[in-house]
């Protein structure tokens, strides 16, 4: 078996050092070693988007990224973005519109939606649908999620942020 490696990562603004097996995925590392269970695992193959996290400013699949690749990097998960209130408008809209049923896809959806709104403050519905095309949701049928992102976008624009 591969020897363990030491990595230093800043997770949700907190710097931590840990010893991990080189084969361990970033999402498993966050869930098992850091105790941040908000990022979920749905396929481990890069298809479902449940494991979406922010790595050095870009969203990545936590299941396809190795923990050792995050050495020296800055990682944000749904817990950190909740505490910092960065995605508060989206969360509010998701709750208001019932854009989550079981909530298993939700952290990944929120991180993806936040990335979209950073790129495009006023996306059209087809643009939202297209951007979410790597995030599987079995419960909602997506319409409520699209509605929620649309309404968060206009909210955020209204707030001038």
């Amino acid at each position, binding site marked *: *078996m591969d020897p363990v490696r030491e990595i230093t990562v800043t997770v949700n603004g907190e710097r931590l050092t840990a010893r991990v*097996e080189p*084969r*361990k995925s970033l999402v498993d590392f966050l*869930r098992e070693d850091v105790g*941040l*269970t*908000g*990022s*979920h*695992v*749905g*396929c*481990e*193959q890069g*298809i*479902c988007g*449940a494991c979406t996290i922010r790595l050095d400013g870009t969203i990545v699949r936590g299941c396809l990224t190795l923990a050792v690749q995050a050495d020296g990097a800055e990682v944000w*998960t*749904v*817990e950190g973005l*909740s505490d910092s209130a960065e995605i508060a408008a989206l*969360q509010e809209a*998701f*709750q*208001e*519109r*019932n854009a*989550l*049923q*079981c*909530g*298993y*896809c*939700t*952290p990944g959806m*929120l991180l993806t939606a936040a990335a979209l709104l950073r790129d495009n403050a006023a996306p059209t*519905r*087809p643009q*939202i*649908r*297209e951007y*979410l*095309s*790597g*995030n*599987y*949701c*079995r*419960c*909602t*049928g*997506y*319409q*409520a*999620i*699209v509605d929620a992102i649309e309404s968060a976008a206009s909210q955020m624009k209204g707030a001038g942020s």
Partner: protein
Amino acid sequence: MTDKSPLTLEDLPNSYIGRTIPRPNIRRLAEGRGTFTDDLTLPRMAHVAFLRSPYAHAEIKSIDTAQAETSPGVIRIVAGEEMSRYCTPWVGVLTHLKGLKSAPQFALAVGRVRWQGEPVVAVVAQSRAQAEDAVALVEVDYEPLPPVVDMETALAPETPVLHPELGDNLAFERVVEAGDVDAAFAEADAVAEEVLHFGRHTGVTLEPRVLVGDYNAGAGKLTVYMSTQSPHMMKNIFATHTGIDEDDVRVISKDVGGSFGIKIHTYPDDMATVALSVMLKRPVKFVADRLESFVSDIHARDHRVKAKIAVKDGKITAIEMDDLTGIGPYSVYPRTSAVECNQVLNLVGGPYDFANYRAVGRVVLQNKNIMCQYRAVGHPVAFGVTEALVDSAARAAGMDPAALRRNSVIPDDSYPYTAASGIKFEALSHQESLEKILKLMDYEGLRADQAKLRQEGVYRGIGLAAMIEVTNPSPMFYGVGGAHISARDGVTIRLDPTGGVTCATGVTEQGQGTEAVIAQIAASAIGVPIEKVRVVTGDTETTPYGGGTWASRGAGIAGEAALQAGRALRANILEVAGAMLQAEPDRLDIRNAAVVDADTGSERMTLADLGKTVYFRGNELPDGVSPELVATRHYSPRQFPFAFTNGVQACWLEVDPDTGFVKLLDFWVVEDCGTVINPQLVDEQIRGGVVQGIGAALYEHCIYDEDGNMRNATMADYLVPMAAEMPDITIEHVETPTGESVLGAKGVGEAGTAGAPAAVFNAINDAIGALGGKITAIPATPELILKALGKV
């Protein structure tokens, strides 16, 4: 005061019934602070991984674990024989499904494997990764046997018999005969015939199946944390097969990441995990990975139906059909795998008024993954058949498909009504619903657009699907056949000295909003703001005994129990208040968490003050007053076996005849699920359900090769509906409450999935019919459509 008409539920002061209330308990999920079962870590928790059969059918000659035993972190390796001493086998039969047969199923295969993916060896290790490493080192010597793959030949004399002790591969057969079918076909003006195939698909809950068995040897108690829909049912099953006293078993279901009928069955790997915990006297966790889910979560559908319909004087007069379905090697325990076929026979023709019906259903065993009840059990097949027949009959009779439906649906004034198949309807609204959807979608306008676009070489189609849905099941569904599955559910409601209200119920939450609905009803029944209400679900030790969530029963059954319990608690509170305030209880009311004068509305005391007096200063209460600030009520429907709902769905789509691609343009639903408690939650159930039905119609398929191997068991290869391809869905309602309960709510969880495949199927044929094409199977992949058009 005397001639005042009684207040309806919705008119009560501070009623939340019929109002959209955002679910109060979901913020934590939106912050990633839910507790899904895989989020749990217990002290000394070990992890199990399974070696699964690579063959569909084989003899196990030998198992060699020597090398695996030495792999780092390995705690224990167990195979079938040893496992059977800790977990007894089960047989998935029920007595009311006459003649249903199946064989004993073991937690780990003993002697023979019967499907690719069947668990053979369990490896327990310190971590999941270590368990998987060791699984790769286990050597099993198999002798492959000829697999029974094709359901069409499963009953042929030369086909091997899966379980020799059963004699043949026929698990179940049922025949229905009503009216004079032959005469109706002989007299018909038009007859249409179809042979239809409904592909095998599966649930693909985003959260895979997961559980942690935690046996405490000192206490002799087994606690199972499990992502499940039915904690009390699982408690009974774990106790029965591990030999632990049922009263010493506790099942706790935390957040559940989608279920749809997947998480309500007895799975061998789940049973093995719990048995391993007992064996090792420590917590053991199992999480199915996605590859395992595809070959071990139940599959559904896989029906081949030959069917025929007769029309006379512009109206449907007879249906005849033959349904064949392959269920894998075992009937699944305890709900059985005969239920889907049984439902198909019950439901075919369901929306229509006709008296002549002949149906044969056969359920056969085969060497594929197990099949059982998944969202909308049988409905998509039944309405897929019915609605395909209705469209074909309309073509044969030269009628507009909407007109044939209009002439043939059960008239709204003819209830109660017994269908030709024998099912009973209390009150439905097919006519009103049909007219409503035709108007909503502008049917005539769409037909005009369609004709115009066709001139331009654009092929668009309209698909209509009328449907009914089984909801609020009575004991006639399972209990009558001997299953320990409760049709009854209860709610216990308690008022605390804070003025807060806590409801505990046996129904469970998987995201559909059960907890919100219970809170809305309880708040309305007692007279408190919803912010005061907490709801507890998913724990056999702290909730009333009950069936859990399945067959769209949560709102209709537990909702009624919540209403009755809330009213009882309200009466208890008013009795105490009356004694304390020296007033007649019926001159008092509870509004906004305070006892008020019923006439003037002026506040007499808050519920918090009342609670504090009762709990902390009981000495102040008048003699003889014995307050009960808690009430429990249960409910189970009894007059009708099911509270049927009805609805109509319509799809507008475009087919590209060069690529076979389907573009969904619009989708409409008119649904009648009785009293609507929370319009937003109802609509979101419908939307999610429709999209699952669209998945079945266009994408989802468990593809098996002739050796019985599933060829597309990954999320990359098994396609599911994604956001970019899905349409927005417009929904309207008709409300025909059930008279069996005061609440009047019926279920809605499965309606979308029940009708959508038929609507999409009919729309595709409506589009490609102009080119002489016709599909007869779902999923309607581009390849299938190009074949139908003779292009490949």
